[in-house]
Every structure is written in structure tokens, then in C-alpha cells.
């Protein structure tokens, strides 16, 4: 008998088109509604059918929010699935597999294999496409979800489809549920996890939804973008909500058009954003410079994926920090934010609109595929903390768009609101906005634009510190790695190790130097090959960071591998 308690990692693996994502959606919703804490994330190939994709679902009695290497329960739904995840299979992994699907060789090499008739059961119902609903029922049964709850959820999820489809999926789930009950009653497998009634009413979102909700909270009413994995889900989310929230959502002919439209929208008084990934952003760079020159607000979401060029379209990486930091020719200020928690993504995207409008600069939100595709339950989202701060001013007859001011910020007027005229120009310009080659004016305008950096730095969002104040080792992270590093640092079990996580990576908060100087040792953890943030910290603080843990395979760090890497470094010169 296999007994599993506390925090269980389930992995489903199969071909694209098998409906693994459907299982993920149903199971995460259903188990959360049953009172379990849930985390789910996926890795997938850049194809519509075939290949091997996998989803990890963590089901727990306490909050969970990061990727594990460990697999407690594996459901392989294709012949290549076991091979795909074999490095993660241990003696403790229970494999629920159909021996007629997985290869005979594979089935001999794994210790805890329980044969499940996925294929035959699906055929009886109407075809292999029902294997996903059988899996759904199977998992629901193992976690002792009520049969009625499962059936109601299935019906709700597949409606409004044609009744045959709905019924067949309900039937498939029921069959899977029955299989699970047999396993439980015969004592083959027993899962025992404490439920928490409070979880039932918690919010379950993924990174893309968090960015989208934050955008709406920040007053976003215009999005123009060109589809590109893994950023498209934000465009989809805002398009779906466009009617309810008065948003103009337009799919542009290319990324160049997308960002130039967004600039036009800000100019005319809208609050606009673009969402893209590295390759698409590369096309937008020219207009990032325009943003800097015309001092327009702009919000740019980049969901990073491994490059260069097409790279690995559906994988994750933190490789575009430098691209965002140095994008656009010429010199002008910018802000770069990088959420680590879903709650941060809501809050930072919200704030991005206010910051962009306040300083009239491009504000970047850097996420990645891992962050976009990860879900977990959160108790609440703070939607009203800052509100929408609108800096548009009514113009008078003497209005000058680029009036020289002490802090570099000129009051922002828009056309058609007031008696003045609003002129913006990509050429160097005078205070009015007219093209100029007065070189003294050029110097004054460069100084004006750059002087905004002073307030932007002073008011930067501080890094999040986790640990004891008398730490000796400081772990540095930024963006999507927050939860993985936090859990790994917790698992290290050392009270002299603390985490400093940056959600604003440029300009960094002035306290950063203080944190770094206090540490005897500092380790930077980043999802790229060249330690982009570590080097930026070195550049801005002068503190040299020798130890780095870098990953650029296209997969997020797992908690276990971070624990091992940190131990190796700490043992080296401990």
C-alpha cells in the first residue's frame, strides 16, 4: 500500500491535443473548491498536436506556489510520456498508467506501477479523447472529492457544449472516479491531506490573469498587440473583458504597429499597454525610443522566453532584462518591474499605469512563461490601494508640452481638452514641441528627461526581504523565481540565510547597497546564462557578487535543485 500525506505533487504527461490542460483546469478548480491548497504549472512544446507536454499540480494542506522536481503521482497518457519525465521518477513515485499505452520496457523499469485501463475505458465511451476526463475523475476519486461535486463540475465545465459531449465527459469522469474508489478501497493507494475550509472561497488565478486584472485596476482601456507565446494570454484576457471594462483591444498587423498605436492612444488620453515576448519586443524597440523622446507614458509587458531569435517559443527564461534595460537608442529613463507573486503582478501592473503617467516614461513588466502559466490560490487581492491616478491636465492657450520644470516632469495635456495645442515630436524639440536644432535647447531637454530618474529612484519599490535581520548569507532573486527560492531557502533550514527579492529591478531601491554590504556572502539566482541582474546590481551598487546559480534550459528552477545548488556553494567555502 502506498500512503501519501501533506503535500502531493501530481504530474500528468501526454501529447499536445490530449487535453492535459483541460484536466489541469478542472482539477485545480475542483480541488480548490474542495478545500485543498493548489499550485499548478505546465511545460509544453511549440506544437498543436503530438510531442510530450506535462503539467504539475501540487495539492496540499498548506499554501504551495512553486515547482518541484519530485513526482508523487504520475499519470502518463502517451507512449513517450515516461521517457519525457524519467529523470523525475523516484522509488516513491506512484505511476498510474495503462500498460497498453506505455512501452513494455518502460513499465519494467518503474517500481510502483498501477495498471489503469485508460485506453479500453475511453474506447467504450467513444474514443481516446476521453482519457483526459477519465484522468480527471481518477484524481478526484483519489482525493475523495464527492462524486456529486465532480459530476456537477464536469457538467458546468463542458456546458454549453452539445449534450452528447457533456454526457460522455461526465461518464468518463465517473469511470475514472470508480477506478480510484477501487484503488482506495482495496488499499492500493491512500491519500490523506487535511482540508482547509477557508480555501474554498479563495481566488485562483494564473500569472496572465494577474497581469490582466492589474491592468484593469490601473485603468487600462487600450491594448494593441500581436500574438506571441507566452504573452498572448494577457491580450486574450483583456479582449474577453473589453466590453465590461470599456477597453479597446486591437490585434495589430505587427508589433511595430502595436506599440505605435498604444503611443497614439496615450497621446489622446487613453491608458494603453502592449503585451509581447522578446522577439516581438525587439520589433518594438524603435518606439521605446519614441516613448523616451516624446515623454509619453507607456506600459510594456514582456513575457520572457528563451532567445535569441525564435529560441524556445513555449519555454521560460529571465533572459530579456538587458534587452528591456537598454532598448531604444539614445538616453532616457525607464522603470522595470518584475513580479514574483501573483498578488505582486496585480499590484505592479496596476502601479505601472500610475508610474508611467506620473513620470511620462516607459514602464516594463517582466514576466516569463513559467509565471504566465502558473496558478495558485490566494486569499485576497488588493485592488484599491492606489486607485487610478490620472495626471492629464486641461491645457490653456499658452500650454507648452515640454515646459522645463525643476523635476523634469512637464504637465501632460492631451488634444481636445482645453484651449491649448499639444505637440509631440520624435525630433529634438523646444518646449512647445516643435522641431529644433538649437543645441542649447538639446542639452536642456536631455537634462530634463534624465532628471526624472532622481525621483524615480528615490520612490522605487523596495525589494522584499525574507529572513532574520542578522543574516550572513544573502540570496538575491528577481521576478518569477520568488516562490521557488523562498521555499528552497526555507528547506535549507539555516537561520543565517536570508532572501532579498527584487520586484523593481530598475532603478533599484537605494537601500539595496545596505542589504548587500551587510552580507558576508551573496548568491544571485537567475534564470539566464549571464547573470544579467547580478551584473546590473554590481554596476549600480559597486558590490561584487561572486556566487551565482544560473539556469537557462528553458525550465524554471525546482525547489530541490536550488537547495542542492545553494548547499554546494555554501559547503565550498563554508
Amino acid at each position, binding site marked *: 500500500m502506498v500512503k501519501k500525506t501533506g503535500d502531493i505533487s501530481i504530474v500528468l504527461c501526454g501529447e499536445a491535443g490530449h487535453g492535459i490542460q483541460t484536466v489541469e483546469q478542472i482539477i485545480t478548480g475542483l480541488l480548490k473548491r474542495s478545500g485543498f491548497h493548489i499550485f499548478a504549472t505546465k511545460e509544453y512544446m511549440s506544437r498543436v498536436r503530438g510531442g510530450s507536454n506535462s503539467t504539475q499540480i501540487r495539492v496540499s494542506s498548506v499554501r504551495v506556489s512553486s515547482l518541484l522536481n519530485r513526482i508523487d503521482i504520475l499519470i502518463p497518457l502517451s507512449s513517450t510520456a515516461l521517457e519525457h519525465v524519467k529523470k523525475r521518477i523516484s522509488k516513491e513515485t506512484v505511476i498510474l498508467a495503462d500498460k497498453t499505452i506505455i512501452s513494455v520496457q518502460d513499465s519494467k523499469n518503474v517500481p510502483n506501477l498501477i495498471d489503469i485501463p485508460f485506453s479500453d475505458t475511453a474506447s467504450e465511451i467513444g474514443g481516446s479523447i476521453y482519457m483526459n476526463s477519465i484522468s480527471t475523475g481518477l484524481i478526484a476519486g483519489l482525493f475523495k472529492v464527492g462524486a456529486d461535486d465532480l459530476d456537477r463540475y464536469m457538467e458546468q465545465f463542458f456546458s454549453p457544449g452539445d449534450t452528447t459531449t457533456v454526457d460522455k465527459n461526465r461518464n468518463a469522469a465517473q469511470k475514472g472516479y470508480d477506478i480510484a474508489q477501487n484503488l482506495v478501497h482495496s488499499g492500493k493507494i491512500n491519500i490523506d491531506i487535511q482540508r482547509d475550509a477557508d480555501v474554498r472561497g479563495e481566488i485562483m488565478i494564473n500569472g496572465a490573469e494577474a497581469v490582466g486584472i492589474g491592468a484593469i485596476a490601473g485603468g487600462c482601456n487600450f491594448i494593441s498587440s500581436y500574438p506571441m507565446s507566452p504573452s498572448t494570454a494577457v491580450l486574450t484576457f483583456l479582449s474577453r473583458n473589453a466590453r465590461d471594462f470599456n477597453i479597446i483591444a486591437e490585434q495589430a498587423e505587427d508589433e*511595430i504597429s502595436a506599440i505605435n498605436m498604444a503611443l497614439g492612444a496615450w497621446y489622446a488620453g487613453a491608458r494603453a499597454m502592449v503585451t509581447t515576448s522578446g522577439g516581438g519586443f525587439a520589433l518594438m524597440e524603435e518606439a521605446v525610443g519614441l516613448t523616451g523622446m516624446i515623454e509619453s507614458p507607456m506600459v510594456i509587458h514582456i513575457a520572457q522566453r528563451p532567445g535569441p531569435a525564435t529560441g524556445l517559443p513555449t519555454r521560460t527564461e529571465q533572459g530579456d532584462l538587458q534587452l528591456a534595460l537598454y532598448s531604444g537608442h539614445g538616453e532616457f529613463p525607464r522603470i522595470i518591474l518584475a513580479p514574483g507573486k501573483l498578488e505582486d503582478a496585480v499590484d505592479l501592473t496596476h502601479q505601472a499605469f500610475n508610474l508611467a503617467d506620473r513620470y511620462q516614461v516607459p514602464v516594463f513588466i517582466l514576466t516569463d512563461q513559467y509565471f504566465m502559466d502558473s496558478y495558485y490560490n490566494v486569499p485576497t487581492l488588493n485592488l484599491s490601494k492606489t486607485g487610478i491616478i490620472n495626471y492629464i491636465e486641461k491645457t490653456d492657450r499658452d500650454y507648452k508640452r515640454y515646459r522645463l520644470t525643476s523635476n523634469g516632469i512637464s504637465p501632460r495635456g492631451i488634444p481636445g481638452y482645453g484651449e491649448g495645442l499639444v505637440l509631440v515630436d520624435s525630433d529634438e524639440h523646444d518646449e512647445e514641441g516643435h522641431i529644433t536644432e538649437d543645441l542649447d535647447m538639446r542639452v536642456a531637454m536631455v537634462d530634463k528627461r534624465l532628471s526624472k530618474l532622481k525621483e524615480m529612484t528615490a520612490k522605487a519599490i523596495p525589494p522584499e526581504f525574507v529572513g532574520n535581520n542578522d543574516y550572513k548569507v544573502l540570496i538575491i532573486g528577481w521576478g518569477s523565481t520568488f516562490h521557488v527560492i523562498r521555499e528552497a531557502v526555507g528547506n535549507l533550514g539555516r537561520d543565517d540565510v536570508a532572501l532579498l527579492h527584487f520586484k523593481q529591478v530598475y532603478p533599484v531601491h537605494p537601500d539595496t547597497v545596505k542589504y548587500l554590504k551587510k552580507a558576508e556572502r551573496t548568491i544571485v539566482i537567475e534564470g539566464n546564462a549571464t547573470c544579467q541582474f547580478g551584473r546590473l546590481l554590481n554596476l549600480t551598487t559597486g558590490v561584487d557578487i561572486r556566487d551565482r546559480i544560473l539556469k537557462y534550459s528553458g525550465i524554471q528552477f525546482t525547489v530541490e535543485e536550488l537547495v542542492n545548488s545553494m548547499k554546494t556553494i555554501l559547503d565550498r567555502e563554508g
Partner: protein
Amino acid sequence: MGTELFDMGDIDIAWCPGCGNFGILKALKEALVETDIHPEQLVIVSGIGQAAKIPHYLKTNVFNGLHGRALPPATAIKAANPFLTVIAESGDGDMYGEGGNHFIHAIRRNPDITNIIHNNMVYGLTKGQASPTSQAGFVTPVQVDGSHSDPFNPIAVAIALDASFVARAFAGDHEQLKEIIKKALSHRGYAMVDILQPCVTFNKVNTYKWFQDHTYYLEDSHDPFDRVEAFRRAIEKDRLPLGIFYMHPDKPTFDETLPVYRRDAAPLFRRELDKEKLIGLVDAKRFR
């Protein structure tokens, strides 16, 4: 009628003496006055090049953006505030070369804007290279053996895309130019005016005289609602027809198709976020 409303007074204009741009500027200002458009309600969006400097030479709101990129911001400005009159204006290199993709898709979107193209068949500001509309064989410092590409035909392309208003004018005929611009400004939907314009410094082939000899006006009997006939006229080569080739006035405009304006005409900047709805959206994620 005087154009004082739009006049800038004594300013330094960067165009060469005798440039066709002066005629276009004068006709544009008069057309605006005669169409009763006010500077505060007008935005001229331009790209880069000598033609793209035009918004600096009349009093109005200006978005002088990037080379080739006038149409996307123009489309968005009109969408964000439909009460504004929006003109996107640049040269042939800007609109048909660097911005060719935007030109195609702006026509498909059909924003209610006027698109004015100063077409002098040469790159002026970069000193005389071939433009997309240069004639085959046009010799330049780069195309030393003459341009080997066929010229881009913006009129035919626009008609092929079922553009809502397609016209060609000549900078040397002030009255007709002004009348065509007025019709374009009054048109609901995307209105394109390709203006043949001599470049006195860098184009020694397509001169005022050449244009006079190689153009003629479409007859009064020309039916601008007949797309096939419009296309036939658009591909004439020896003498280029002038006037309004084609109109498809009842096409829905971009902002008319946007759900945000179905119940409320207010521009985006006058609207508030419905916070209750946002809370509802988040609450829906509690019981997914």
C-alpha cells in the same frame, strides 16, 4: 477665405525654394478653414521626411512620430477620442516604403482619418535615392543603373483593398488639390489623397512640366462607386488620372465597430473604471 487660424507667422521652413510642399501646405490650410475644422480639434500625425515636417508649419495638435509609423498612432488617436479630426500625412517613402504594412492594414481597419501622401517619387531628405514610387530606370546615387523595380501603385493597391475613399491630386493645381482635400476631410472613413509633387532638387525627371504633360482629370462621368472601373483607371500608366477614383462610403469605420462606443460616445479619457465590476471579475475567480 483667410487661413490666419492656422498661420504660424514668420517661421523658418526647412523646404527648398519652389518645393511642391508649399502648395500642399497652402491648400491644406485653406481646405481646413473651408471645412470649418478648428486647430484645437485637429491632430496631424506625421512620420519622418521633408513632407512629415508639415505639421510644424501650421497651428494645430501634432504627433510627429517615427519614419513610416504615422498610421498606427493616427488610427489609435481617432479610436481613443472620436471627436478629434485626424490627418496622417507623410511622404511616399514613409507611407509606402517603411510604412507599407501599416498602409495596407490601415485601409482594412478603415479608421475615420484622412491620409495625405506627398508623392514626389524620390527620397529628398536623404538626398535623392529611389522611392517606392520612382519610375523604373530612375537613376540615383544608389540606383546607379536605374531603379530596377516597378513603381508601387498606391491607387491600385488602395482600390484592391476596397479603401473607403481613394483620390490622386497634383500639387501644381491649387484649386483642384484643395477641393480634393476638402472632400477627403469630409468623408466618413479612411480617405486617401496621393498628391503628385515635384521635388525641385532631387527629381529632375518628374518636374512640374512632366506632371502637367503626364496627368489628366477623370471625366465628370467617371463613376467613383464602380470599383472595377476605378481599378482600370488606376493602372493606367502613360498619363496618370487625377481626381476621386473610388469611394465606398457606407463601410463601417474602425471606431464604429468598437464595442466601447456602442452605448456611450464619450472619449476614453472621460470614462471611469467600474470598480464594482472589477471586484465581480475577481470574485468570479473564487469559484472557478
